[in-house]
């Protein structure tokens, strides 16, 4: 029952943000113009991804404290869900970049950070699939997940230092769109959209976990 309530909430918030995002009036800023609406779709993917990846990190830590395999499933499925949002974020970003910057991929710290995140978690999945023994796999991949997540956070912190300034909106290069400079009607769509996608991300993660648990239960019964 409670689960259903969250599902409805997530669904309604996302539907609202999709329609409202297309319908509301947005400020006409140079360079980005109407493509500013991608804020409601693209940026939310990264919020959802970071939240789910943080869930994965916390569960890896919990696994190393308790050595309970349940936490390993939680961590792995969170990483998989996060990757899904990572790919969606890159795709929505690439379509936008093609129309705004003229290229699918440009040299920008924001984009490189996104690519590195995806690479790290793909490597995490490769590592997992290379070890057969459950306890060992859980322990080693938890160590890698923690090591990688901390370095990833540092990387995202360091990157802006390295570049002469990003051309990504909201990061100084392009006009407008700083979190503080956000138009007030846009906030009315942007914040619910973030909430909606984060909630949906968590729901997808929980369903995946339940699927894995059911599968292992079936295997147990078959044996």
């Amino acid at each position, binding site marked *: 029952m409670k689960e259903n309530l969250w599902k409805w909430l997530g669904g309604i918030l996302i539907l609202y943000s999709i329609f409202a995002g297309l319908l509301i009036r947005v400020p006409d800023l140079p360079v980005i113009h109407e493509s500013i609406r991608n804020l409601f779709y693209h940026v939310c993917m990264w919020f959802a991804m970071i939240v789910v990846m943080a869930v994965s990190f916390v569960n890896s830590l919990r696994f*190393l404290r308790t050595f309970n395999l349940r936490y390993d499933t939680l961590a792995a499925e969170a990483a998989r869900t996060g990757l899904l949002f990572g790919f969606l974020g890159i795709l929505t970003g690439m379509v936008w970049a093609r129309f705004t910057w003229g290229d699918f991929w440009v040299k920008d710290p924001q984009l490189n950070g996104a690519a*590195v995140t995806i690479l790290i978690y793909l490597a995490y999945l490769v*590592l997992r699939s290379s070890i057969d023994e459950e306890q060992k796999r859980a322990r*080693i991949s938890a*160590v*890698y997940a923690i*090591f990688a997540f*901390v370095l990833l956070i540092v990387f995202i912190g*360091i990157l802006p230092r390295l570049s002469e300034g990003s051309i990504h909106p909201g990061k100084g290069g392009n006009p407008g769109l700083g979190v503080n400079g956000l138009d007030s009607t846009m906030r009315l769509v942007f914040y619910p959209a973030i909430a909606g996608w984060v909630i949906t991300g968590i729901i997808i993660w929980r369903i995946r976990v339940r699927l894995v648990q059911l599968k292992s239960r079936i295997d147990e019964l078959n044996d």
Partner: protein
Amino acid sequence: MRWDEVMSLVKKDLRLEFRQRWALNGILLYVFSTVFVTYLAFSGKMDTGPWNALFWIIMLFASVNAATKSFVQESNARQLFYYFLVSPQAVILAKIIYNLMLMLVIALLCYGVFVLFMGSWVVNHSLFIAALLLGSSGFAGILTMVAAIAGRSGNNFALMAVLSFPLVLPLLLTLIKVSAASLAPTPFSDHIGNLLVLLLLNLLVVILGWILFPYLWRD
């Protein structure tokens, strides 16, 4: 953990290295031949940009190659034996120190061969040396930890590159930036910030290894 445990482990590794010279010689030859191949590929003409990028890419590949065998050259039984003798922290610290020495040798050789074939573009030598030192230690820290992770799984060699490249990137990009600056006449003090970032990254990696390695250790 006691300090003499670390020291005797480092000594053990050094002695192993000198008894079976092929490992070290293999790495040195690897560096030499990669640089030679790039020299031929570029037909000897190179700008500062490619010089810098290639230098660090070759450094990265040589370091990954050198670090890969950190934990696999000794059998599991032998590792278990060490586990009864010393603390896991001593093992990881010893490996990092040993790999650091190895990386320094690689860095010096790489630079030497580069200068020999393609000339030196370095203007600000102290900045470049600082980048080399901090780069080698950073590589040693990250790659030792990844080697410990990859060594526990089945196919060590393929995993090593996949696991380490995304993790090395923050270090590598900072290094390339600092060393690019050292190829032009810029004052040393402009880059204290970036050098501090490198130093902090090194510290962070060692601390993470210190905390996480004990979990990798037992089987």
